[in-house]
């Protein structure tokens, strides 16, 4: 980790390159002097000694221990300095030191003049980095996202809310299968087992370290409280240790922003959120401006799928199984289309009850249930409910862009129906690939970037919320 060496406690470290005496000397001799150091296991393995002189900063010395070179540590150290001082920076470099010069150039330094024979007869170059370079162009932001709201432990690094650098997800589906659904206490126990492994794998996959991360985005809710807490405490602890901004992300905002990993989001848009816990229509006028048009009055669509699957004796998670069975079936069973009204709301508990009654009645009559056909009839009605209200919202609000989000966005029947609707109404449709539909941290990191630009921050007292409205 990189820290500004405190004038009080500089003696607490092992010095590979300097000595505490030298530090003390510089501090007493140079009132402008400061040390920015790279610490690993209490060893100072690299440092920048710089003078902060009113409106500018001069780098006097910059050194990385020889056994720690060529792994981005020097870059990280210099980036940290650029970030923290936010001033014009000057330095001198030996003209033969090509590695250093290319590093400086990469970070926006330009040669200003030549100093003949500066280094024992070898020329030195005076380089300068203008502070406005950084502010003219929006700075690149690497966000680490962490998600643990249900049964996936996931970590991801995303650049500027759009480019996925690395994602690692540990899923517990096989563990919960035996219980026919997610068992909250078991989920929490799995999260704490996996959390550091997932984080380590993610950083390794990205070939990055925590110092190169600009902010940490965390799903604070809604979800299973015990599960949420593991990710939350991990995120807060990292934010504390590495002094990074902490960004609270609503799980549904995450699902919506999965689309940002696919294609630039154009506003105003309609977000159709369909998952195991949510069924919502959300209008967005700009990034991070959410307006809920309607939602489910009882069960979420994914919940309804899983419950119906259980009635049909399909293995958990049953939603995807209904989807694939329905492709092989015919629409022969009569089921009611739920909540045919003028609102943007949904209701799925009536549909679930209708399936229970239907199965029960057929059993009484000793008629075998044709699973493929029941799946087909159920899916047709469930999808129709979503499509009808989506169509109404698009037409009422005159929207030109629709995005689908949440686990049920992986449903092939729904995808097909959405594609047809978009074609009929001539609106642009985005549906994320399946890997971004289920719970993952890439979507949390993507949402985290736009939340960050929106100025959203949390302090270390951030708590998890099992329920919370998206605003």
């Amino acid at each position, binding site marked *: *980790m990189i*820290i500004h060496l*405190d004038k*009080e*406690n500089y003696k*607490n470290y092992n010095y590979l390159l300097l000595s505490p005496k030298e530090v003390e000397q510089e501090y007493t001799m140079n009132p402008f002097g400061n040390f920015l150091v790279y*610490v*690993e*296991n*209490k060893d100072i393995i690299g440092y920048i000694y710089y003078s902060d002189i009113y409106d500018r900063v001069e780098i006097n010395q910059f050194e990385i221990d020889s056994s720690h070179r060529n792994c981005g540590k020097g870059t990280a150290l210099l980036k940290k300095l650029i970030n923290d001082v936010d001033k014009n920076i000057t330095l001198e470099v030996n003209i033969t030191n090509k590695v250093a010069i290319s590093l400086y150039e990469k970070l926006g330094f330009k040669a200003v003049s030549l100093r003949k024979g500066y280094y024992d007869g070898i020329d030195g170059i005076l380089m300068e980095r203008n502070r406005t370079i950084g502010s003219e162009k929006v700075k690149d932001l690497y966000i680490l996202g962490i998600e643990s709201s249900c049964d996936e432990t996931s970590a991801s690094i995303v650049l500027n809310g759009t480019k996925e650098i690395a994602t690692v997800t540990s899923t517990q589906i096989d563990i919960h299968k*035996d*219980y026919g659904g997610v*068992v909250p*206490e*078991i989920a*929490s*126990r799995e999260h*704490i*087992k996996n*959390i*550091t*492994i997932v*984080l*380590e794998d993610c950083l390794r996959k990205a070939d990055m370290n*925590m110092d190169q991360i600009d902010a940490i985005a965390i799903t604070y809710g809604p979800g299973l*409280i*015990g599960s949420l*807490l*593991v990710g*939350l*405490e*991990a995120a*807060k*602890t*990292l934010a*504390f*240790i*590495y002094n990074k901004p902490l960004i609270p992300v609503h799980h549904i905002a995450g699902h919506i922003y999965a689309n940002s990993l696919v294609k630039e989001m154009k506003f105003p848009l309609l977000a159709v959120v369909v998952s195991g816990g949510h069924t919502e229509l959300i209008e967005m006028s700009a990034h991070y401006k959410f307006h809920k048009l309607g939602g489910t009055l009882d069960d979420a669509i994914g919940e309804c799928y899983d419950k119906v699957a259980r009635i049909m004796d399909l293995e958990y998670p049953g939603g995807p199984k209904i989807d694939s069975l329905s492709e092989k079936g015919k629409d022969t069973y009569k089921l009611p289309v739920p909540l045919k009204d003028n609102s943007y709301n949904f209701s799925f508990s009536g549909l679930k009850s209708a399936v229970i009654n239907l199965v029960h009645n057929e059993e009484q009559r000793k008629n075998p249930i044709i699973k493929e056909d029941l799946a087909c009839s159920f899916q047709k009605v469930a999808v129709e409910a979503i499509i009808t209200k989506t169509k109404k919202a698009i037409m009422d609000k005159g929207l030109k862009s629709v995005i689908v989000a949440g686990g049920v966005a992986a449903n092939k029947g729904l995808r097909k129906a959405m594609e047809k609707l978009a074609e009929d109404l001539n609106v642009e449709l985005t549906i994320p690939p399946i890997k971004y539909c289920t719970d993952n941290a890439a979507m949390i990191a993507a949402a985290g970037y736009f939340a960050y630009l929106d100025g959203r921050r949390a*302090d*270390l*007292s*951030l*708590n*998890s919320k099992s329920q919370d409205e998206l605003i």
Partner: protein
Amino acid sequence: MRILYIDTSSSYLYAAISENDSKIVEIKKEFGRSLSEEALPEIVELFQSIHINPADIDKIMVVSGPGSFTGIRIGMTIAKVCAWSMNIPITTITSLEAMNISSDSNTNRVPVINARRGNVFAAIYDSNNRQIMPSQLIKIVDLQQKLKSLEDYIFITNDDIEIIGNKESYSPKLQRIINYYKDKESINPHAVNPEYLKLTEAEENLI
């Protein structure tokens, strides 16, 4: 040698940074439901009070349970992430060990934690801290049966448990706990996990 100690296994937060064998800053605070909100900020304050950074810690000691499942996970996640990300040695002790070491009684000691429905988490130690019965989930009646063979003993607990015998309340002596266990072998942070001593209800029903 600076050791960070964290125990969130009960409704109290016990945390400390021990600078050496005699100098310590500590916090003992009852939290209940807001533990997740306040645990980390309180720990951060410990660091600030002695002007050190997380990287200045040499070892982490965390209580792994038994106790409140959610509570244990809060402290252990903080400890695990600290140890892993900064590559600091970490060791775990049980809440029952912490209770035993904190006692001044010169007899056999029986730390007990309420595990509901007539059960307790318990262990038995002699006055020299030797373990007579390892940490376990046990029915109160079975525990009392086991204790019959001992001449004298005292229960250590802060819970309201219907149990027959002399009792003393648990008042943690953090410096003493840290000193006693400071050389305990450290483990890979990834392998640091709570000791629940109890399956989840769903798992019990499945058996």
